[in-house]
């Protein structure tokens, strides 16, 4: 626990990031400072990826113990992203393809701009059901299962294999809750709304959560890239 710290802005950063950097520095010789810097940044990224927030105030990695825990996450992350084989995800290929097709219905590609598939909305959804709110995974499992059951009964095909227009009509029926209830283990409308909100977040939200690849939607809207300034970089404090 950090108590009664000097509040000056710079040392505040020294408090959290500096602590970590110090540890890293002590592990590496000074010639490798630059590497240490990279590690620090990578740790931050890993933390984003793995959403390691477990303290009362959601503050992060301020203690040695937490550092070590996060270092473990970091190496797991490195292994995960280093070995080339994607780990087993929360969804089967069939489920994944179905979700990709549904998200693409929410934000389809057009002649100029990419859609949900190009933006990697599925990555965002996978983050949501694994790292952010795993308690929602059963909703997705049941939802996709119901979609496929209804699709197969109505069209003898999985949802992702229907043509685009048929998919659209299917989604409209889901939204309007106009589908045969016997195929559904959850409310079609509720599942539709879930896909809608998550697709929009994945497409229009910040890229650091897996979607909006290369700021695709920001570019589409002609928005300035977010200014990347930070208190510790801007130098606005003296």
């Amino acid at each position, binding site marked *: 626990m950090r108590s009664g710290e*000097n509040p000056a802005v710079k040392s505040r950063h020294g408090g959290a*990031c500096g602590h970590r950097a110090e540890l890293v520095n002590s592990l590496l010789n000074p010639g490798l400072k630059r590497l240490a810097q990279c590690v620090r940044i990578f740790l931050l990224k890993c933390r984003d990826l793995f959403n390691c927030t477990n303290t*009362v105030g*959601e*503050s992060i990695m301020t203690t040695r113990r937490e550092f070590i825990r996060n270092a473990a996450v970091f190496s797991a992350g490195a292994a995960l992203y280093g070995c080339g084989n994607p780990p087993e995800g929360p969804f089967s290929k069939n489920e994944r393809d179905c979700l990709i097709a549904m998200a693409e219905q929410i934000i389809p590609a057009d002649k100029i701009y990419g859609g949900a598939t190009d933006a990697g909305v599925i990555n965002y959804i996978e983050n949501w059901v694994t790292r952010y709110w795993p308690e929602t995974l059963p909703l997705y499992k049941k939802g996709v299962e119901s979609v496929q059951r209804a699709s197969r009964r109505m069209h003898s095909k999985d949802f992702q294999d229907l043509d685009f227009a048929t998919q659209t009509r299917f989604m409209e029926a889901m939204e309007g809750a106009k589908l045969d209830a016997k195929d559904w283990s959850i409310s079609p409308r509720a599942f539709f709304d879930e896909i809608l909100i998550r697709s929009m977040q994945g497409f229009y*939200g910040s890229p650091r959560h897996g979607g909006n690849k290369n700021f695709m939607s920001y570019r589409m809207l002609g928005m300035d890239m977010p200014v990347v300034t930070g208190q510790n970089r801007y130098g606005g404090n003296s």
Partner: protein
Amino acid sequence: MASEIVHPKTEVVVVGAGAGGGIVAKQLAVRGVKCILLERGDWPIYDENSNDELINQRTHAIRAIHGPDTRKFPRAVSDGKGGVKAADPWWPDHTVVAACVGSGTVTYGAMGWRFMPQDFRLKSTYGAIEGSALEDWPISYDDIEPYYEQAEYEVGVSGDMSTNPYAPPRKKPFPMPAFEYNWEDENIVIPAIKRLGLHPFPIPMLRNSVRYNGRAACIRNHTCCGYMCPCDAKNGTQNTVIPVALKTGNCQLRTNSFAYEVVMEGRRAVGVKYFDLDKNSHFQPADAVVIAASATETARLMFLSKSKLFPDGLGNQNDMLGRCIHSHIYCGAWGLFDRDVERELGPGATVAFSDLNHIPSKNIFAGVLCSEFYMLPWARSKVIPPNTPRWGIGHKQHMIKNYRRMIRIVGPVQEIPMYESRVGIEPRLKDWFGLPVYRAMPGGKKHPLSLEQTKIMTETAAAVLKEAGAKTVCKEGEKVYLNYGSVGGQHQAGSCRMGNDPKKSVVDPQCKVWDTDNVWIGDGSVHVSNGGFNPVLTIMALAFRTGENVAKSLGKGGAA
């Protein structure tokens, strides 16, 4: 759990380093009072949040970056079957201020409003309102005016009320000049407001329009409301009063310290018990205790603090604790134009008009209407004009075409406090420490007159947009905002109201808890009503006053 850690005695423990608590600690420290400031969160760190729309403190689509961790600290809502369940942990069911040093003041939109003189005596201005718990404040605008001034100077407000005929009286000018209007406000919104005979003026902001107090001037970032400032130009308690308090050497800040009981011996508090991150229990003895944990959490802590004299919770001897909690109904309208109108200078929200605030002859005491803060793409994707699809290629085309064609005018409705709206604690649901959680009432109970005011505000916002030339106007008042958030959203207030009559209030006019010798409340809980404006400057002003009162009670009064 290890045995309790007992600390050496201090003079005052302040619970919560937010808007109120930070100021109380500063007032004590500069008067030579030794104090310990307990905060459940940690120092906020800019890098955690930079420009990320999905985790910011305003929309918290995934979570709220500055806490609290809603998984560990759930809130209970009714499951509709007589039981309870945890509220959905993200917006809008789980609205919270924050859990970090500075709390909401780190990420707020930073509108720094004074309430109007009438806001302190609603009952005498409008008469008793049936079915409500409306009361006059036990203090007047004149009592609080010097403290408003102190808040404006010590925390820092940019403003200019010269074009607002309804501006509350003030002795000194603002310490910083007002922000200039954004292009769309100056050229589209303001002329329309004026043509309707209303009176636009720049919104007073707790943000530096010029270099102030050793920190930079605002750089007009998009991501301001809901975000920490990249150049530290937004003034919260974390970068103003709390550093001052710590510098005196009289105040110690303990972060990651979750207060769970004010320990009472008869009428006297003898200290505060809290948990650290390892769930160790600590006891901090003190001569006096100030609770400033925000309206919901202050009431919860008091419910948890049972003693012989207060078996139903500290300050609950008259069954008033937690009652009358309210915030604001937010309402307004969107206008959709047939050309690009927005020039994207952050953070938006430059103009306001408060003509609707107090027209006693018409029973209107609505609130202020303002242009809206800059919103990022996801938030905008949820704004669907009529005849626009919610999804699919039509929605995408709408986004591309209309992204810069929308102007929004919104504001907080002065809500009428209701006796039945109450913070409770729910023993069936426990938080990470094993403590009963806050029980939320979705939407709370709204007085019909509050809804009427909402309508008036919405219509007025819509009229301005129409006058400004919007081709389509979407009113979003009642529908969108009425039920959002459990009671106790970001403007939560009123759960431990102040009063002259101990039977009808929790604290006395000095903000000391009735029937105690040394327990004080220093946050928005004490508001009798919450004005037609965002509440924080009033919370701050009261905290300056309460801090002084506490110091006086310890024989260390007088100017600092």
